[in-house]
């Protein structure tokens, strides 16, 4: 929340909201990987996703926040829960939670942390002139323009976007074929 980025727009809320949401996201993120009970993990993941949605709102990106809630919290997580509920919880809770390659995991985490730190350090010099500060009223349109284009012109990401949707379609068909024995 650098006020300098969003020139002319009032801050959505006080920085305390940011700290609150960030803390919620981090804590529930930790709960996701430490809870033995899979349903608890899933619920914690939902809290993480909602906190992140809140962060998007603070960044004047309501569309992304809305999509985050609909797709992840409302859709995917419900399916997650659906699947998890069919699993025998008692058996799972007796199994080992972490596998043996934790050193590699630790290494990866350290690398990620380093990446974050460098991004944070260099962020100010990297991003300001590349981020287009969009006021809330038009950034949904902005996303649309990038994805679909406007005034007869193809958007910046139209092709990539369509490729992604095609990929998803293929994935769906694959899933159907794999599960259905005869069509």
């Amino acid at each position, binding site marked *: 929340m650098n006020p300098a980025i969003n020139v002319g727009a009032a801050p959505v809320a006080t920085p305390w909201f940011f700290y609150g949401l960030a803390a919620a996201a981090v804590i529930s993120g930790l709960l996701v990987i430490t809870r033995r009970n899979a349903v608890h993990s899933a619920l914690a993941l939902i809290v993480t996703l909602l906190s992140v949605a809140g962060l998007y709102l603070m960044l004047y990106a309501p569309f992304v926040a*809305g999509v985050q809630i609909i797709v992840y919290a409302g859709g995917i997580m419900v399916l997650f829960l*659906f699947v998890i509920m069919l699993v025998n919880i008692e058996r799972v809770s007796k199994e080992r939670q972490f596998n043996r390659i934790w050193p590699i995991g630790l290494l990866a985490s350290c690398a990620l942390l380093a990446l974050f730190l460098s991004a944070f350090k260099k962020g100010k010099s990297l991003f300001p002139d590349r981020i287009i500060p969009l006021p809330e009223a038009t950034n949904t349109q902005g996303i649309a323009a990038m994805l679909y284009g406007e005034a007869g012109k193809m958007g910046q990401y139209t092709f990539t976007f369509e490729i992604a949707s095609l990929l998803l379609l293929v994935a769906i068909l694959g899933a159907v074929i794999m599960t259905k024995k005869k069509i």
Partner: protein
Amino acid sequence: MIDSFLSYLGSTVPPANAGNQLWVLIYVLIIFAAVSLTVMWLINWVERKALAHFQVRLGPMRVGPHGLLQPFADALKLMLKEDIIPDQADKAVFWFAPVIGLLAAFTVYIVIPFGPSQAVSDMNIGILFMLGVSSLGVLGIVTAGWASNSHYPLMGALRSSAQMVSYEVAMGLAVVSAILMTSLNPSGTGTLSMIGIVEAQQQQGIWFLFKFFPLGLIAFVIFAIAMVAETNRAPFDLPEAESELTAGFHTEYSGLRWSLFMLAEYAAMMAVSSIAVTMWLGGWLRPFPNLMHGPTWDFIFSLFPGLSFVAFAAFAFIGTVRMPKHSYFKIQTVGLGIFGLVLAFIALILLVISIGGYVAQAHATTGPSPTGLLKALATFNEGIGYVYWFLLKVTIFMYLFIWYRATWPRYRFDQLMKIGWKVMLPVSLGALIATAIVGVIVK
């Protein structure tokens, strides 16, 4: 603080957009109280009475005249009832599940536009927010079913999650086709804002229900079916199918927690009805706002709220007169009479406000804009008109919910899924594509 309170009166944007935090708080409180009360008292009573009369029964008759106080008695009973948490249940999740459902159901009301400025917030992504948050309601049901650690609730939860995820797709597509229609505005851009959608209908001079006939109607019907499924009401009440799963996901719940589920269910019913009204039935707009405009028409339509209450009061008085003349019914007779008087008093106030609004409008056309009381009356008149027409339309939907429940048997799970995926989804997709094509041609 008082300045802030007064200065906002008559504002044309919702308080959150005006940055008026005091009014945000007031609105939230009003909406929360009003929704809880309508759900707890009015809808509960109407549903029981209407259902009873469908089924050649009388319904509640004892607590209060014609059972008017029955919902309060029930609420009291539920609050005092022992709150049982099963021994094997996952206690934390069990405790939290109804809260999730309730939160989701009530958060939605933030963006529901009862009028152009009668909403907490006019969000840019209003409809998206609404669909997203209302889809979180299923989490309450799923976690409740799982946390009960019992077979029937688990099956209810499984059914409910599958059902909601499936019907959300058709629902979303139907909504998108209405959103497409907003892009035919004179201004040329569509909107996701709930207020913007209603305004688009006003600007285009047609409810989206009738736009591109029958495309708007198809989308509306799809939504109207999907919203019944989303709220787990008959004939799609499989997650709580009484005769199959005893009570589905809330089998193990009792007392206050159970009543939270009921509250959430009814609040969600009102919320989805509000979406339908906003998207297709012109939201807060009164009938024919463009054809029949002018002070006289405004006045005639502004009499409706007052006249409705006159009708309610008349019903109450007729009931008072027809009450059996027996000492046993004395309290009830007096109570109903007082209730009628209260209604008549409300009717009087509403009529005064509408007349005051007419006078103010007449003043405004002839001389300088009115101030003081007259201005306040005009403002109230306008606001009451908006809220009245909006709630009237929502009421129709609420009544339909009850009607469905009295008439239809319950679908089976596989049939429900088949309808969701094989009928509703293609039809709504087709309607969406057709709407887009027609829209491009028209534009």
